[in-house]
């Protein structure tokens, strides 16, 4: 069994490397439209990884996690409009998001379950309200523009494709390292049984806040990249709860609590919506909804989770045969 689990790990690593090689060479064969689609897929995968560490591994659903996306986007916009280069606003965006995740996390992560989810929606709404009303700094409800890269669109789209791809790879590797470390065992213990975790010497509030800070880091950098990519952002767009819902669906379909789930989920949901969009224009949302219900009904652990189970069960069956 040990061997089979390790095999499973090998399969995961192999799958990850293959995917990455495909993604690196893909832009040379694709049109501008598809490059944009893939950049969006990578972006959603990163946001979904931020959701994954919180919900998939720790059992806390930060419904308003999109707040860090908005913060990242707005810090990038404000900084760049003051003349800072993009590489300087990127760490600024990340640090602001991490600071806020700690500030809000210490009180809010003491609440559990649905109450925590609702509290994060409240914080997201509050931050959006602040952004909408500080017009001199943020541009208010009208949104704000960012400097445009002085290159042909095909080249800039290539930049953002590779930047998002790199971000997705780094976020996924970082998550993998965290989950397999001591910190990761502490985080997973909180989902498994928070009381027991406490009595076993795990400082649960420290672990919860750290996990949220990691989540904020991923999501805020995605937000900053998005703002620079779009060169225009508005508050209702980057603090949108629709994004939150989409990210949760991506995580669940791919497999919450699996390393590759969010990437595969993002790919499937976006592809599905492309196909449905082009063939059922009028029933787009309905067909998409039914497809998602079907996947969640038949594979509640998500695609990666179900695949893992299948491999594990096959391992058990083989082992039983050997022992008989």
């Amino acid at each position: 069994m040990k061997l089979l689990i390790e095999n499973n790990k090998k399969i995961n690593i192999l799958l990850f490397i293959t995917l990455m090689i495909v993604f690196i060479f893909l832009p040379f064969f694709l049109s501008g439209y598809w490059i944009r689609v893939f950049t969006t897929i990578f972006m959603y995968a990163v946001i979904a990884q931020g959701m994954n560490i919180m919900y998939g591994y720790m059992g806390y659903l930060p419904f308003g996690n999109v707040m860090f996306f908005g913060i990242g986007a707005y810090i990038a916009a404000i900084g760049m409009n003051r003349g800072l280069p993009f590489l300087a606003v990127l760490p600024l965006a990340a640090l602001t998001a991490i600071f806020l995740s700690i500030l809000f996390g210490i009180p809010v992560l003491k609440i559990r379950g649905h109450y925590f989810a609702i509290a994060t929606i409240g914080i997201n709404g509050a931050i959006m309200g602040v952004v909408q009303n500080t017009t001199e700094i943020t541009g208010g409800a009208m949104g704000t523009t960012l400097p445009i890269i002085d290159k042909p669109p095909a080249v800039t789209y290539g930049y953002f494709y590779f930047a998002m791809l790199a971000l997705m790879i780094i976020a996924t590797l970082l998550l993998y390292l965290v989950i397999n470390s001591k910190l990761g065992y502490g985080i997973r213990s909180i989902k498994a049984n928070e009381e027991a975790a406490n009595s076993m010497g795990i400082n649960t509030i420290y672990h919860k806040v750290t996990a949220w800070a990691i989540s904020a880091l991923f999501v805020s950098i995605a937000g900053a990249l998005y703002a620079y990519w779009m060169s225009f952002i508005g508050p209702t767009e980057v603090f949108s709860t629709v994004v939150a819902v989409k990210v949760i669906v991506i995580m669940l379909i791919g497999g919450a609590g699996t390393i590759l789930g969010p990437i595969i989920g993002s790919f499937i949901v976006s592809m599905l919506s492309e196909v449905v969009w082009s063939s059922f224009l009028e029933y787009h949302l309905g067909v998409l909804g039914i497809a998602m219900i079907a996947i969640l009904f038949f594979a509640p652990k998500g695609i990666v989770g179900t695949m893992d189970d299948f491999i594990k069960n096959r391992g058990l069956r083989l082992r039983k045969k050997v022992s008989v």
Partner: protein
Amino acid sequence: MGENNIILTIKSLSKYFGALKAVDGVSFEVKKGEILGLIGPNGAGKTTIANLVTGTFSKTSGSVIFEDTDISNLKSYQIARKGLTRTFQIVEPLKGMSVEENVLVGSLYGRDNRNTNMKNSSKRTREIIKLVGLESKKDFLVSDITINDIKKMEFARVIAMDPKILFLDEVMAGLTAKEVEKTSILIKRILKEKDLTIVFIEHIMKAVMGVSDRIIVLHHGKKISEGTPQEVANSSAVIEAYLGKRYAKEVVNNG
């Protein structure tokens, strides 16, 4: 017995739930290296004492002194890190994790958790799983093993935490007579190997009498007797409150 021998002192500890005095001014001491039995009928306050000492509940009044420091205001994870840990009456496994991972978490955190790393902890985990006899089940999820195996796993997990003092809350409940005997032997062996002190909260009289060096009897949140198993069994207060004359006689006659 010198002063240095005492590892844990409980001083007039009380816990009230509204009008209910679950624990009412209980004082006792635990000596280093002993097995202390904590017994009493249902609702006597045994588990409440474990909850108070390990920080699961906050006290109403009194103090708990562990190695010269008052720990009664610390959080449960801080108490666990000092080396004072417990098992639960109702099992509390880490659901969705394997037996090995459950024990590994105990080994990673627990006492002196700053000094532990993955490599050493994994090694320790394997040794302890072997010690309690769960080797063949180490890769199973806790949801796929029997309640007795979960209890063994929880025992392995607290041993992995490398405690100085361990509260065992009804580890024998639900076991057959033979299993009780086996578990008693296991506890005695581990006590010797790991240089532990154990407070043994129990319902099964036979197990307590056979294993404990000293016994404290609680009734309605108050301590009513303290002494060796024989002394306690012969105490009229205890016989009245709990044991019944017939059982007490048996114990005395059989030594």
